[in-house]
């Protein structure tokens, strides 16, 4: 089930945009490709995705990859759902760096590493943490958090990067 690879990840936002433009009686949803980490569910104000040095708008429906940075401005906030149903929200002036994501839909084994450089991040842990709690790590400039299946908020003051 995890063998399907999308040939062009870059084409995804385009594909989503054209899907949204279609007006048909058929209901469309957008599954996240098996090689991606998740999807932006809600975006308010300034939300930017940085991928390999390139910036794009973090709009509703944008795919989040396993090594993206998501950055919100002073008026920004964003809600992200990962494939294992980890749910996250970035408050204003926040930088979240995704570092690693893997999830097997049959066994629920996987790994999630992410770090908060500045700002606020709310997290509701998902299926990876339920299957193997030591496989989920969030870090901040001075801490590493081990998640034991739960809901929490990370708050990092200052300018960060």
């Amino acid at each position, binding site marked *: *089930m995890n063998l399907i690879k999308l040939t062009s990840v870059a084409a995804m936002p385009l594909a989503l945009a054209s899907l949204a433009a279609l007006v048909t009686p058929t209901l469309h949803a957008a599954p996240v490709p098996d090689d991606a980490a998740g999807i932006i569910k809600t975006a308010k104000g300034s939300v930017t995705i940085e991928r390999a040095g390139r910036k794009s708008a973090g709009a509703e429906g944008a795919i989040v990859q396993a090594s993206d940075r998501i950055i919100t401005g002073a008026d920004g906030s964003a809600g992200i759902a990962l494939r294992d149903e980890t749910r996250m929200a970035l408050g204003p002036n926040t930088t979240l760096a995704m570092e690693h994501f893997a999830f097997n*839909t049959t066994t629920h084994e996987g790994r999630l590493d992410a770090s908060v450089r500045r700002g606020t991040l*709310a997290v509701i842990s998902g299926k990876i943490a339920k299957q193997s709690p030591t496989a989920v790590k969030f870090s901040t400039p*001075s801490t590493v958090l081990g998640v034991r299946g739960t809901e929490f908020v990370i708050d*990092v003051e200052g300018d960060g990067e």
Partner: protein
Amino acid sequence: MIGPLIFIACLAAAIAQHNAAPRERITLLPGADGKPGAVVVATAKGETVLDQPYRSAQVGGNAAVTMVTEPESAVRQRYAPVLAALPKAAAVFTVYFETNTEDLVPESAARFAQIRDELARRPAPEVIVIGHTDRVDTTAYNDALSLKRAERVKQLLVEAGIAADSIAVAGRGEREPAVHTTDGQAEVRNRRVEIRVR
């Protein structure tokens, strides 16, 4: 001689000031399922476990950790903007199968209209169809059967008007029974497919 003393006094004051406001704060919230969770906070100075709701580990400039418990209202107010941005939990619809078949029990078919409605309500919606089996037969057989059941439900969703390329399928085999049984036991409540709209 007075210069260095003033400098030291200022430095001490600056450090005290710096430490007064936490630079980082990790706050545990109660889980939506009511189960107590926990977060292990590791710093250069050691590990601390957060396992009470609305308790925070506050990390100062010197990496020292202070534990603080606050009223729920203070935490909810401080983090209102970020908590409001959390995506909704998945809506879960479950349909059941006759033994060793891909045929739904009749009452399960009625769920499809509700699934369409839920899908239309959500931002950037996803549909994930996950098959499960009971513990009759082997793990490998059940992995294949659970995936076949999920594919069958995907077909039904397509017939109900949901685009085929927008549905992801997975098979969990017998790993996640709704009801625990001994191996080899037939159990209708475990022969099911979850349709998760998120």
